């Protein structure tokens, strides 16, 4: 069972980091495009709580939460999205490519649906090497319209690979409702491939963690792929700066009722966790983010000469 306080802390860190990113983006300190997962933190926190260091995660364009839940360095993360040489990727990738291979974080991905076959390959590597590791592919409800998703589930099913596919179903695919784009219900889709589908409340980190732990435990003992569908809400625009003309403003108010962090907090208090403990956790998350941002600000900009020689391995490597 995942410790609810740890889940709470992970979600807080993601929320603090992303709200800080929103400010940095508005102030021009973060260039490019960023897609925030505010409101969806329970999925990243819950799934990653079920994983160990030997497991791999392939993420999406909305991947900050997955990376943070995987335990990447916050300083490396901010330095990356702030385009600094000390970034996890030396400032060459940015928000859509945050990766930390040492920690089994195979990268966010700028291509919808592209993380799934990469996770498939990671799962294949686990099985080929005879480990008990698993690979997770996070994907959005809109990504189900991509062919690579179907190829991936089929291959994982015929080969019985330890691939856990986690759908963050927020109802939206960019500016469109995903149910106008994807004919299949996720459960029916997975059933067609003989793959087990589990639906969870994606705003309840403990429920997500329980579903992920159950799947991962089975997979460590040889079970094949599984799909978890976590229903959740995307609180902000598709990207920062999205005017969201396509969306009813009422929706935002309703979403806040399902805030995974507020829920986690209330549950912890009910279970007798002292309020002071939660306040300390909140302060620590804020401090960790502030410290990381300060370090990233002080870091030198991304290095062009290093980038230029970074396309291939150095000769003789």
């Amino acid at each position, binding site marked *: 069972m995942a410790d609810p306080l740890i889940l709470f802390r992970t979600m807080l860190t993601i929320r603090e980091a992303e709200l800080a990113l929103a400010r940095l983006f508005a102030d021009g300190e973060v260039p490019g495009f960023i897609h925030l997962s505010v409101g969806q933190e329970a999925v990243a926190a819950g799934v990653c709580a079920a994983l160990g260091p030997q497991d*791999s995660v*392939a993420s999406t364009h909305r991947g900050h939460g997955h990376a943070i839940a995987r335990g990447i360095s916050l300083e490396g993360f901010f330095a990356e999205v702030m385009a600094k040489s000390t*970034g*996890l*990727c*030396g*400032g*060459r*990738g940015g928000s859509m*490519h945050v*990766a*930390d*291979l*040492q920690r089994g974080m*195979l*990268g966010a*991905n*700028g*291509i919808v649906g*592209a993380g*799934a*076959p*990469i*996770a*498939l*390959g*990671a*799962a*294949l*590597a*686990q*099985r*080929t*090497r005879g480990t008990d590791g698993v*690979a997770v592919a996070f994907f959005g409800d809109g990504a189900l319209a991509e*062919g*690579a998703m179907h*190829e*991936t589930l*089929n*291959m994982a099913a*015929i*080969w019985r690979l330890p691939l856990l596919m986690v759908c963050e179903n927020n109802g939206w695919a960019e500016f469109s409702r995903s149910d106008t784009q994807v004919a299949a219900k996720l459960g029916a889709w997975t059933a067609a491939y003989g793959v087990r589908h589990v639906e969870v409340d994606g705003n309840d980190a403990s429920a997500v963690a329980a579903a992920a732990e159950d799947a991962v435990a089975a997979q460590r003992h040889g079970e094949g792929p599984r799909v978890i569908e976590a229903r959740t809400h995307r609180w902000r625009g598709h990207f920062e700066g999205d005017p969201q003309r396509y969306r009813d403003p009422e929706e935002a108010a309703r979403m806040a009722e399902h805030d995974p962090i507020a829920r986690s907090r209330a549950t912890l208090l009910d279970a007798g966790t002292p309020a002071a403990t939660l306040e300390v956790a909140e302060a620590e998350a804020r401090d960790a983010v502030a410290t990381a941002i300060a370090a990233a600000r002080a870091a030198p900009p991304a290095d062009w000469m*290093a*980038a230029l020689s*970074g*396309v*291939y*391995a150095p000769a003789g*490597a």
Partner: protein
Amino acid sequence: MAELRMVQAVNRALTESMTEDDTVILLGEDIGAAGGPFGATRGLQEKFGPDRVRDTPISEAGIIGAAVGAALSGLKPVAEIMFMDFITLAMDALVNQAAKARFMFGGQRGVPMVLRTPHGGGLSAGPQHSQCLEAWLCHIPGLKVVCPATPADAHALLRAAIADPDPVVMVENKALYAMKGEVDDAPAPLQIGRARVARPGRDATIVAYGAAVHWATEAATALARDSIEAEVIDLRSLQPWDEATVLESLARTHHLVIAQEAVEAFGVGAEIAARMADIGFDELDGPILRVGAPFTPVPFAKELESAYRPDAARIAAAVRRTLD
């Protein structure tokens, strides 16, 4: 020394690499039990088992995507795409993922995978089973592209490709699969990016790769009857390519023709011509000429396909024209 067909040389390189390194695995459609559509993987599943020689469904995007993920996770996958025409279905994994991972992740890790795929016409295979699409891949920073013309080079280049820490595409000319040639029992390792002088000469340089190397050699033999000695350079590696060897030859012959089976426009030859027009400008005593396929899809009918494909006569004519 053994005489092997090119397809057997590929098989031998796979066998050796898999024997030496148990992280090498093979993926592809009908490569296992069936031994591969062209027989390149014959016998390997019996030898190394179905986990290391994995028959895949007909899912090119999935195959190459999985190869990327496996390569990022410590394996060295060698994927086969049955015809080069089918790489279109795997382009995201190849171009956006494999090629970029090392750079985009700040050098944390490379993608040590190989994609083997046959190109080329001459078999009446029609517009979707004959294309030479290597120039697309040469245009992508992060990929390496090699194309052997002989069994010995097919063996050596594949060994080098599997050992390489970055993604390498080995393009195999399917009309050459049956070609026989000597392969050393323990050849010296070949470095990707080194060309080979296939035939020495002093009057003109013909740069070629794959099947065009043989047409160029045939053209050189014909030209020799008129006392024109053409040097034929077999590029072997297209990305990176051996600028120094080409320039050195041009500095002796002062005339350059580039021959390829692929469509001439925007091809490998265009890049070589542009570079030599720059760094070799002072050496040139005639126009740099290209010989390649016309700007049409590869046709099916024998008559049409033979009109379409470049040959020794067209290469010889180009050499005469630049010497004129």
